[in-house]
């Protein structure tokens, strides 16, 4: 099976800790770079999908801490046939872009994701009230981000005996990989085991280096039909994709075994996620992935080279878009010194356990 779609342009801005300019300017810089990479012009774009929410708990206002497709379309004077947003991580937007080009509704769809580092940090509530499902958690002091993942990891530790060294191995392999990623915030900063173990707790059992950090930056992708892709300088064909509660079904849909995946980008907003995804994908049985990682599975030359760009933990919180960019570049053969040789299937899995997207990219189209 194939989705009938391909990514033919990738654009990224530098990743900075603080916002030095408008988030809209950041988004447009990524879009310009993606269009140039694809070799197309603004007037060729007939679809745009935004990813319109801030992971930082800010005001959630277009142009302030989020960038919607409507805002981009208005500012750039685009007249697309389809313009919409997803309220999920960026993988869901790519899945929708693929469907639009495969259906023939659009020829070139831009997916854009911009994030801005909130000036006043993360706040779980702005009005002292907790709405929706948060009414059962936030009044108890459980914040939407780290708390639930700290609780999940503590449960895992109790059940399977995992240790801080297990988490450090994930952080460490990614920090070393990040030295080859020019976008990574921590690209020039190695992390020793002592520094990791002595770092302050944020929410025990997770410490500072188990968390990605808020950054400002944007990534844009140009998606077109697989039949159009051959006319572009580079293409990553989307062999299979799924978004929702069971993203791993995309592997089965494409009849791909996980051992036929050569490189993986697994969302790592917090370090324990990597173990979760390895077990969801069947790389290891539940409870066994730390042992696999201790054996070097995530390294270059390991069983499944993972987060070869350093992950969010090293690059910064682009909320999954860094993972997708890297998966695309690996499939295109354009990952430079990070390139894994012999890539036939390059995957990105981004999201949270109950809502994620899996994308399988290939250097060649398949049927």
């Amino acid at each position, binding site marked *: 099976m194939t989705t009938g779609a391909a990514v033919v342009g990738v654009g990224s801005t530098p990743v900075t800790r603080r916002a030095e300019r408008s988030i809209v300017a950041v988004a447009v810089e990524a879009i310009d770079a993606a269009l140039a990479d694809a070799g197309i012009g603004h007037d060729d774009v007939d679809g745009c999908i935004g990813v319109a929410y801030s992971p930082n708990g800010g005001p959630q206002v277009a142009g302030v801490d989020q960038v919607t497709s409507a805002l981009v379309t208005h500012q750039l004077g685009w007249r697309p046939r389809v313009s919409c947003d997803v309220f999920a991580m960026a993988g869901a937007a790519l899945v929708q872009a693929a469907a639009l080009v495969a259906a023939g509704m659009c020829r070139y769809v831009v997916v854009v994701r911009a994030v801005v580092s909130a000036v006043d940090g993360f706040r779980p509530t702005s009005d002292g009230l907790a709405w929706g499902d948060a*009414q059962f958690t936030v009044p108890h*002091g459980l914040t939407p981000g780290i708390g639930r993942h700290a609780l999940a990891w503590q449960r895992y530790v109790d059940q399977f005996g995992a240790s801080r060294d297990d988490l450090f191995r994930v952080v460490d392999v990614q920090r070393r990989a990040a030295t080859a990623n020019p976008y990574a915030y921590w690209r020039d900063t190695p992390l020793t085991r002592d520094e990791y173990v002595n770092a302050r707790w944020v929410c025990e059992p997770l410490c500072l280096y188990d968390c990605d950090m808020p950054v400002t930056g944007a990534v844009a992708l140009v998606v077109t039909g697989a039949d159009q892709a051959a006319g572009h300088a580079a293409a990553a064909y989307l062999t299979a994709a799924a978004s929702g509660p069971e993203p791993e079904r995309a592997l089965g849909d494409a009849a791909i075994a996980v051992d036929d995946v050569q490189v993986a980008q697994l969302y790592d907003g917090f370090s324990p996620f990597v173990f979760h995804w390895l077990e969801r994908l069947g790389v290891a049985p539940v409870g066994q992935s730390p042992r696999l990682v201790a054996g070097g599975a995530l390294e270059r030359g390991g069983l499944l080279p993972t987060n070869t760009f350093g992950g969010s933990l090293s690059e910064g919180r682009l909320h999954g878009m860094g993972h997708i960019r890297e998966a695309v570049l690996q499939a295109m053969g354009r990952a430079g010194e990070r390139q894994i040789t012999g890539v036939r299937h390059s995957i990105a899995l981004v999201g949270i356990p109950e809502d994620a997207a899996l994308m399988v990219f290939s250097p060649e189209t398949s049927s």
Partner: protein
Amino acid sequence: MTSSEPSPVVPARDALTAPFWSATAVGELRLQRCTACGRFAFPPTVRCRACRSSVLEWERLSGDGTIHSACTYAAPPAPGFTAPHVVVLVQLDEQPDIVLTSSWPAPSAPPAGARVRVSFVPNGDETLPVFVPVSAP
């Protein structure tokens, strides 16, 4: 905060959740239970997650449970909280896959499996169900 102090964040009840807060206000822990398959549901839902029945009734629970997991915020999780702040997940005796979040009335996290019982703490216009340790008999 500890279990005896109000939280700086108040739950905003809505049409789906009002029976939960009306029950805690009178010192009862009530959750929806499916009349078709007998499963409890939480957080509140319009359909049973197990069988999709739309007939769910609010049933009182014992309020007894065990610690499923715990975490400790080193800094206040939000303005108005103190630190360290411990949050626990509690498995209810009636159906262990129903897990409620609670603040914990001590600065260090309890071990998984510890026995707990619900208590009720006034909080703004609502009353929070807060789980506390059950002392050994």
